[in-house]
C-alpha cells in the first residue's frame, strides 16, 4: 500500500515480470497511489505510468526488457480501468476492505473516452470549458502547475478574453494541454473553441 515514491525494501516485491498481470496486485500500488486517491490523481498517475513504461522510455528501457515493459503497461491499464470506474472501484475497495474514500473528494464526471469526445459541441465557449473542468474537480492552479501555462492565461481562456490571448499557434497548444487534462479530445476542443475567434486583419 505504500506509494511507489516511497518504496519500502521489505514491502511486497514490485519488480517486474514474475507476477501475473492481474494476480492479486494492489491496484493502487500499481499506479503508485494510496487508496484515498482522487479521480484526478488516478488520471495523472495513469498518464505518468504509461510514460514510465512507454516504448523507448529513458527511465525503464535499460531496466526492463520489452516483454516486461509490456507486462507493466498491461498491469497499469488494468489497474486504471478499475480505479477510474466508480462502480468497479467501489467493488474493489470493498473487496480489499478499504474504507470508501470521503464522498466529496471523488468527483466522477463524464469519462474521457472517444464516445464522449465525439459528442463535443461544434462550438465551445470559455464557460463551457470551465464547466467541464469544474465537473472534473480540477483547479486552474493545478492545470497551470502541470502544463506550465500561466493561471492568468487560463483565466483569459475561460473568460473568452480573446484580446489577451496569445497568437493562435500558441493558443492552440494551450487548449490542447487544457483539454487533455480535463479529459476531452484536444484537437476537437481546440477547434471548437477557436472557431469563435475573429481572424485578425
Amino acid at each position, binding site marked *: 500500500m505504500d*506509494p*511507489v*515514491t*516511497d*518504496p*519500502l*525494501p*521489505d514491502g511486497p*516485491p*514490485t*519488480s*517486474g515480470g514474475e507476477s501475473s498481470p492481474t494476480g492479486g496486485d494492489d491496484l493502487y500500488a500499481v499506479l*503508485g497511489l494510496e487508496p484515498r486517491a482522487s479521480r484526478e*490523481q488516478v488520471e*495523472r*498517475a495513469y*498518464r*505518468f505510468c504509461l*510514460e*514510465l513504461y512507454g516504448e523507448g*522510455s*529513458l*527511465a*525503464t*528501457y*535499460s*531496466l*526492463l526488457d520489452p516483454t516486461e515493459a509490456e507486462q507493466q503497461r498491461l498491469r497499469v491499464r488494468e489497474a486504471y480501468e478499475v480505479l477510474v470506474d466508480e462502480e468497479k472501484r467501489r467493488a474493489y475497495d470493498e473487496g480489499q476492505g478499504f474504507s470508501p474514500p470521503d464522498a466529496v473528494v471523488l468527483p466522477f464526471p463524464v469519462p474521457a473516452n472517444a464516445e464522449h469526445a465525439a459528442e463535443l459541441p461544434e462550438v465551445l465557449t470559455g464557460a463551457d470549458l470551465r464547466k467541464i473542468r469544474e465537473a472534473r474537480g480540477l483547479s486552474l492552479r493545478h492545470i*497551470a*502547475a*502541470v502544463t*506550465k501555462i500561466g493561471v492568468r492565461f487560463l483565466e483569459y481562456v475561460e473568460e473568452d478574453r480573446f484580446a489577451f490571448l496569445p497568437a493562435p499557434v500558441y493558443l492552440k497548444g494551450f487548449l490542447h494541454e487544457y483539454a487533455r487534462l480535463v479529459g476531452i479530445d484536444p484537437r476537437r476542443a481546440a477547434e471548437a473553441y477557436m472557431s469563435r475567434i475573429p481572424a485578425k486583419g
Partner: protein
Amino acid sequence: MALSVSEVLPVAAPRTRRQIWSIGGGKGGIGKSLIAASVGWQLARMGRRVVLVDADLGGANLHTCLGLPAPPRTLADFIQRRVSSLEDVLTDTPAGGLRLISGAADLLSAANIKHLQKVRVMKQVRALDVDVVLIDLGAGTSYNILDFFLLSDVSILAVVPEPTSIENGYRFIKSALYRRLRAAAPTEGIRQLVESALDPKNPYGIRTPLDLLARVDAEDPEAARALRREVSAFQPRFVVNEVRDVADVAIGHQLVAACGRHLGLRASYAGFVHHDDAVWQAVRRRRLFMCDAPTSRAAEEIRQLTRGLVKGESLGSGY
C-alpha cells in the same frame, strides 16, 4: 518555475553537523563540475563555509569553472605527501566562504590511489573545519569514486536526458549499492552472493537488488534484514541537467519511480537545470554563470536546487 514540482516532500533531514556532499554520475561531460561549482558557490552565498574538492583526478577542471588559474598545489601534493595536511592545498576563491581543493590534472595514476591513501584523504576531508565539503567525483564507477559517494551525507547523482547518461546512472547506482552491501555482508557466503550479483550473467538469475534481497532472504533471513537496512539508508538524489522541455523534467520523476519499483531503492529528485546559453557563454569566458548571469534560468534553478538540498527536500512524485 512552477511545475508540479512546487509540492515538496521531506526526505531524510540533513544533520546540522559538518556535511559531506558528493556529485557523481558515471558519465563524463554531463555537467557535474559545473553543478558542483555553482552549488558550492550558492552555498557560500547562503553563508555556509564550503570546501569544493575536485576529486576528478583524471580530468580536474573545477578551478576553470570558478574562473581561477590552475592552483599551485593540488590534491596530488597531499596524496604524494609533499604536504602533510589537506589545509595546505586549499585555494581561496573570489567568493567569500568558498575554497577549493584542486584535483591532480598532472597525475594520471592518481585516479587509482591506493586504499591507505584514500583512507588518509577521507579522514582529513572529515576533519576540515567547514560546514559543507562538496566533492566533485570524476566520471566512472571505480571503487574510489563509489567510496566517496557512499561516505557522503548527501549523494547527488547527475544525469542528462540521454540514454547513455541514464544507463550509466543506473550502473553507478547499482555498483555503489552493491559495494555498500558487500561491506555490510555478515558472512563470507552472503558476501560472495553480493559479488555474484554484479555479474549480469550470474547463475542465480539475480538482476536487481530486489532479486538479491529475495535470494539472501531465502538463505539467511537475519542477513537479509541487515542488508535491507543498508538499502533503505542508500538514498541517491537525482539532478537532471540540460533539460529542454517538460518531458525532460519529468524524467527525474520517472527515474525515482523506476528506482523504487524495479530496484527497490528510495531515490529522490533533487532538481533540474535547463539547458541555458548563459552557462556555456560564461564557461567560454572562464567565468561561473552564477556570477556572470545571475538572472539566468540556470542560475535560478541552481539556487532552488541548493535550497532544496540544504533542507533535505525533493520534488514531488510527478503526479
